[in-house]
């Protein structure tokens, strides 16, 4: 039996935060289109072929990338494989429980995966070693250490940083054998830096990078994934309330500027 702990936000807090926002203010003093402090630190785990630690405000995620040789999927025999997995660790928040990934954890994995896959961050064609037989499979593991809101933007930013930091051994075919040369590592082929920008809708206003307090009271959430040329590669709406067409279009134009700003934190 799993007992879920639900965090209850007092109505009075909800009301006061919403009123602040209606007056054009956020409780932490940020502008509606302002991120909290961001730190991206690549190469933090020596045993991982690629890694990064990312902080947005007090939200903190550690990301490790581990490439392994494996069999490609039948429908894509010439493409490498990218697998994203998230653990919302019980240390990250008092209401996170140990155990198999819950729906929030799966959503975070899948949204991150979608942005990276559809944004074509990794050149999967270059990860093919022997067509139909052996390709590189890159396992991307997201370890959420501290949860203070907006996991999605942190997850994508950190994942791209970790992938940019990843090295794979050079491969050579000698007859029927694959020779992996760990003394000559090459960087993972990266051809795009697609990133995500998340909005929360509170009191009819759109604010980016919601803090924990804002996430707890937001009506709806919209995450937009964008490539470097400003094209949209992934999107996800969450939360109990709805959004209008105008709001979504407005968010897209803001996301264009903000993902470019986020990109400057990448190494």
């Amino acid at each position: 039996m799993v007992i879920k702990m639900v965090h209850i936000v007092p109505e009075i807090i909800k009301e006061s935060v919403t009123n602040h926002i209606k007056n054009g203010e956020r409780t932490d003093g940020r502008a509606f289109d302002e991120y909290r402090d961001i730190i991206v630190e690549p190469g933090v785990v020596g045993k991982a072929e690629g890694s990064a630690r990312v902080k947005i405000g007090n939200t903190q995620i550690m990301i490790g990338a581990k490439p392994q040789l494996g069999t490609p999927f039948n429908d894509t025999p010439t493409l490498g494989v990218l697998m994203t997995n998230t653990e919302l660790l019980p240390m990250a928040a008092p209401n996170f429980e140990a155990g198999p990934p819950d729906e929030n954890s799966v959503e975070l994995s899948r949204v991150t995966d979608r942005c990276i896959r559809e944004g074509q961050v990794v050149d999967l064609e270059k990860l093919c070693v022997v067509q139909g037989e052996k390709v590189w499979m890159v396992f991307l593991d997201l370890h959420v250490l501290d949860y203070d809101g907006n996991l999605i933007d942190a997850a994508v930013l950190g994942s791209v940083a970790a992938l940019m930091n990843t090295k794979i051994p050079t491969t050579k075919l000698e007859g029927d054998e694959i020779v992996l040369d760990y003394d000559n590592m090459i960087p993972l082929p990266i051809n795009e830096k697609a990133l995500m920008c998340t909005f929360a809708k509170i009191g009819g206003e759109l604010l980016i990078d919601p803090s924990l307090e804002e996430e707890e009271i937001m009506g709806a959430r919209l995450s937009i994934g964008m490539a470097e040329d400003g094209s949209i590669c992934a999107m996800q709406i969450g939360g109990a309330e709805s959004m209008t067409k105008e709001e979504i279009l407005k968010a897209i134009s803001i996301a264009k500027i903000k993902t470019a700003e986020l990109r400057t934190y990448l190494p």
Partner: protein
Amino acid sequence: MNIIITNNNLSTGTETSARANNRAFDELRNLKIEAGVLERADGSAYLEMGGNKVLAAVYGPRELFVRRLMQPNKAVLRCKYNMAPFSVDDRKRPGPDRRSVEISKLTSEALTPAVFLEKFPRSTIDVYIEVLEAEGGTRCAGITAASVALADAGIPMKDMVVACAAGKSDGNVVLDLSEIEDKEGEADLPIALMPRTGEITLIQMDGHLTEDEFKKAMDLAIDGRMKINEQQKTAIKNRYGD
């Protein structure tokens, strides 16, 4: 299809008997502890020991929702030890395995004697240990970090708990085995104890030691405890001042 791996850095097992980095037989690896590194947790600590990187977090004392575990006269101390999939050379499948379940149990038992659990009846103190990078001796690193996190959470304790492994490698009894020394060595003996009184709260052993070697190994671990305890105290002092 065969896969051949070439890597000159891999150990051949025929290296010289000296320890890596000219470490003396009773010398600890580089140790660094920092308290209060997480925002949400009630207490936390980050520890680096050699190539190990370990994070410990404490929540509690808090309400225990699993009623059958509840103790009417004291708190329960629960521990979860977990390794990140990227913490080891070959990716570890996420989730608990038999090894981490056993280490979780032993860790909570190693910490329990130091904590005044009777002050918090019917509640729980949860300790979470995350191994971010593993290089031999992670359970000891986890226990050492967890007791700093407990202190950081303000939980009353009669002493810190210090853990360190001793063992035998290349025929010598040595302190604080590295990953290679553990894998290729003859014996591994992790010990946790309360430094003030010397009470031992955890002992495990695998490998082969004579009685004399065992005594020597145990003395090494007991003598090494103060250095680790100094680092624990420094971490707390750095966070809260003298």
